[in-house]
């Protein structure tokens, strides 16, 4: 073993291989010789779309060990032909951002700090607030008696990075609940 690794001493390889100046194969390390891109070793590749602007560039998402390890352009896309802008190129960092939040946080009225809360409780509390406000601010008719059937007390502002399916459910739920102030970035 020791003998083999001694023979691997680049100085010897230099003179054995003819690469006397030690520029090429004589000086490579085992690590270098075993190099493989993480795109080749990924467990799976998933086709996706860039979440930033509205061009809709294709992305390939490489996953290893249930972590996203690389996001790059999808060369198959006729829209983008594998290219991405700086934001699209940074998508992997968006997913694995250093400041990204993984926990629900709650700030009670007049509180000065965040508190933690489990998600289940949070959603339940939000549902309660939603219904209370709706009850308090319900408008059945306008001043001339035409039906309004709505609440003016709940509003929403959605970013335009929501999926169509998400927008659809939001619109459906809010409309059924009588909330009309549903807006998104399309107007901003």
């Amino acid at each position, binding site marked *: 073993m020791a003998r083999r690794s001694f023979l691997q*001493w*680049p100085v010897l390889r230099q003179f054995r291989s003819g690469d006397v100046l*030690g520029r090429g194969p004589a*000086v490579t390390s085992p690590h270098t010789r075993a190099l493989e891109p993480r795109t080749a070793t990924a467990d799976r590749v998933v086709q996706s779309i860039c979440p930033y602007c509205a061009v809709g560039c294709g992305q390939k998402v490489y996953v290893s060990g249930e972590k996203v390890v690389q996001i790059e352009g999808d060369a198959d896309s006729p829209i983008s032909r594998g290219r991405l802008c700086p934001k699209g190129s940074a998508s992997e960092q968006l997913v694995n951002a250093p400041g990204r939040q993984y926990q629900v946080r709650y700030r009670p009225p007049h509180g000065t700090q965040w508190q933690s809360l489990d998600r289940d409780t949070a959603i339940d509390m939000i549902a309660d607030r939603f219904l209370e406000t709706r009850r308090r601010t319900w408008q059945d008719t306008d001043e001339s008696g035409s039906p309004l059937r709505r609440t003016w007390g709940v509003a929403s502002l959605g970013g335009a990075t929501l999926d169509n399916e998400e927008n659809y459910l939001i619109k459906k739920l809010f409309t059924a609940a009588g909330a009309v102030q549903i807006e998104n970035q399309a107007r901003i």
Partner: protein
Amino acid sequence: MSVSEFDSLRPPEPAGGKRAKRRRRSGGGARSWLGRGADGGRDMPVVPDAQFTSYYGKPVVKPAPWGEEVAAYLFLGGVAGGSGLLAAGGQLTDRPKLRRNARLSALAAVGLGGVALVKDLGRPERFLNMLRTVKLTSPMSLGSWILSAFSAGAGVAAANEIDRMTGDRLPLGPLRKVLRALEKPAGIEAAVFATPLAAYTAVLLADTATPTWNEARQDLPFVFVSSASLASAGLAMVTTPVAETGPAQRLAVLGVIGDVTASRLMHRRMDPVAAEPLHHGKAGTMLRWSEGLAIAGGIGTLLGGRKRPVAVASGLALLASSVLTRFGIFEAGIESAKNPKYTIEPQRRRLAARRAAGITDDSITTA
């Protein structure tokens, strides 16, 4: 500039981070004409060469990321090499004190130098990788091998001296015999690698894209061996009684002559712009003092070398001169890399000269 009475309530302008300061400084004169991007044509109040433009005054090449440890190593390597020679001389001409002190000096210098070098590595724990290959094109690689070879000889030789100084009390056992047997060959071996050790550092600096160092490539080895000679000789004059320092004093004087001559020649032969950093700023000051001290030390040696106090003073002056030479040249090179002028102007000039001479096929820029 003021907006209103609210000025006092504004936050203070930050003093500027480390980098911001550096930016302004390196811009220096450049900034005024580079305020508008690289458009050097207009607004160039202080530009000597109207053709000179750069990218916002930013450097073209990068200075070596070396700290003062490396400048110190240039000095210590020289001292070690010179001392190795003196030790061998002492060995061969039977000057035991000179031999002993020079051997010890050589080991101390090479040891300190080695430490300085390792300390300056980005990954000191990997210093052994220096012996991973033999790169004939790499002065650093060759230097590492030279340093190792020299250290081996110098170490064995010095170990003998130490052993003797402690009255053979080192716990060596049967190895003492081996040590003694190796003493003379080791002294000679070290001497063989002594001058390469003193000289290679010049190539180490010259074999870079650092304008001032690279431009000095013709004469820098001579400056460095001269400086090594006078420094090691100076050290011997400090450590060794005058009775045995005759050769060292000679070497010191020859070193001074060589140092002054080679330095002047070097300045003269360099592109004038690339030589500028040797004259300006901290580096210029150091090099001026260096020359003065060398001459003073030389004269002192010549006139009062037989008197121990004068010899010691002269020796110290010579050591200081060598330190200043190394630090000065080191500093000048780093400065030259930080200012794009020193890269761009000489290059433009040589390109134009070649074109004027009818050589038009070797430009990196082509139509």
